[in-house]
């Protein structure tokens, strides 16, 4: 089985609007897949369908050969799909350390220990420090999250998602709002992650998409209009029209 994730005729209707329309995706293992498309193309809705945040009107989501369509978000995470959000989604009043620590504990199923002291989880504490290092937040581990810059918060969120050791990671606009320097760091990080994990991401910055994606899928008005390597997509006429004639 080479496809880690498949969707079959996935459709999501909001009233008369088909936000996602008959989408058939096949994501191969350990590749970086980008999903691009103009605003409102249905990228985030597609992510929400895959991760169980919303239920599809029809169609199926298959992960590692098993259907996960009707599972709740927390069950899907346990199966091995991690996700970061378009709008930074962290725990504002917990320390930087605890933001990741709680995800590490969740991953090792130790969150229901009600009489244990946090400091007794040596193994998890070690893992947390490793992750903080990966996302370059080691020096700020004891800080309040409110003191972090926008880019650092995005990295923190990535760290939370990585702590769950997902086999498939969904990143919704991972570099949105970042400075050039921060963007470069995040791009490097994504490439590093993709050694072990399958990455599915959306992005508005085309230079990043063409730089790191192995395969690009173009969504337009909820439908897949093109699918292929960066070169094929670049020369696809329909894609150029979808982007208002803008040559990409």
């Amino acid at each position: 089985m080479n496809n880690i994730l498949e969707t079959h005729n996935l459709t999501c209707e909001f009233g008369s609007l088909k936000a996602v329309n008959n989408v058939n995706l096949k994501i191969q293992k350990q590749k970086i897949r980008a999903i691009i498309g103009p605003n409102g193309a249905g990228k985030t809705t597609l992510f929400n369908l895959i991760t169980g945040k919303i239920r599809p009107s029809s169609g199926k989501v298959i992960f590692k050969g098993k259907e996960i369509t009707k599972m709740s978000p927390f069950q899907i995470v346990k199966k091995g799909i991690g996700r970061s959000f378009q709008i930074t989604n962290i725990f504002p009043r917990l320390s930087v350390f605890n933001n990741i620590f709680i995800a590490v504990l969740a991953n090792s199923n130790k969150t229901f220990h009600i009489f244990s002291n946090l400091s007794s989880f040596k193994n998890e504490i070690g893992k947390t420090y490793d992750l903080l290092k990966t996302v370059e937040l080691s020096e700020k581990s004891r800080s309040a999250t409110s003191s972090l810059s926008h880019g650092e918060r995005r990295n923190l969120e990535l760290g939370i998602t990585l702590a769950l050791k997902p086999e498939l990671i969904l990143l919704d606009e991972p570099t949105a709002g970042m400075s050039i320097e921060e963007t470069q760091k995040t791009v490097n990080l994504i490439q590093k992650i993709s050694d072990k994990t399958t990455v599915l991401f959306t992005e508005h910055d085309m230079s990043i998409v063409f730089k790191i994606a192995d395969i690009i899928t173009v969504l337009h008005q909820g439908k897949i209009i093109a699918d292929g390597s960066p070169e094929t997509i670049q020369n696809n006429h329909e894609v150029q029209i979808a982007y208002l004639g803008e040559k990409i």
Partner: protein
Amino acid sequence: MKIKNINKIFYTFIFILLFLLPISGNFYYINLFTEIIIISLLVMSLNILIGYTGMISLGHAVFLGLGAYTSALVMKDIYPSIMLGIFSAAIISSLYAFTVGIFCVRVSGLYFAMITLAFSQAIYTITYYWTSLTGGDDGMIGIPRPDLNILGIYNFSLESLENYYYFSLIVVSSLFYVMKKILDSPFGTVLQAIRENPERVQFLGISVFRYKLGAFVLSGFFAGIAGGLFAPFQGFISPELIYWTRSGEIILMTILGGMNSFIGPGIGAGILILLKDNILNYTEYWRIFLGSILIFFVLFMPGGFVGFLSEKFNEIFKIKK
């Protein structure tokens, strides 16, 4: 010095003060502080929901009532043992929290507030009309205060005010220790994460529903014990214990003391009960003064009394978190 150590010193200091209080021999205050100690357990149990998990319950008095009626009925009709009374209060209250919680914790925010209010008012009405069991509007009188049997060797009489005061102090302090331990555990940290961002917690692979239900049962467990202590303390109980204004009062105590700290709500209980008692000496319109004080707190000390204190303390001694 670390925050943790300062807290420890602070808790020990309060405990010693309370332990020495009966030496004054002032029965009026011993009585008042027994009430404060018992009610502080109730308020702090509510703070597991409000301050830690971010669930504002408007029906918390129901647990006080359930605990009180259970322990009263058990001690009067089944077997006169204070420990049995308290234990049954905790069990019944937790069971109720579990059953009702399954419905309540599915919703959040205002809806959670409304559904907890509705359930508590339902229990109020049942208590009010089920005269054969609860005595209805007249309440229940003559609740016994049996001796505390320690390991079958020694009988500690709880008849005197001081002895019941010490008994409550020891029970409540030990429960605070357990509560603190739980709230500092991974479980407690998940609760705080749910308060901050329930959606993200789902996406950590954690069932928010189960943890919220856990918090609700835990809260009911501690609050039930408060009820179990309260009935023998007062000697009589009435449905008024469950009425929604009492639930509101518990929330006021939480805000006054400070819901962002562990001990805050307990201190809030002390402040409100003492204020009420003092102002009542001068005027029966105590609610006007209480209202003004509350407005002052909400506007100028949003972290409550304890929040305000620790902020000043940190400023003066430049303590880093």
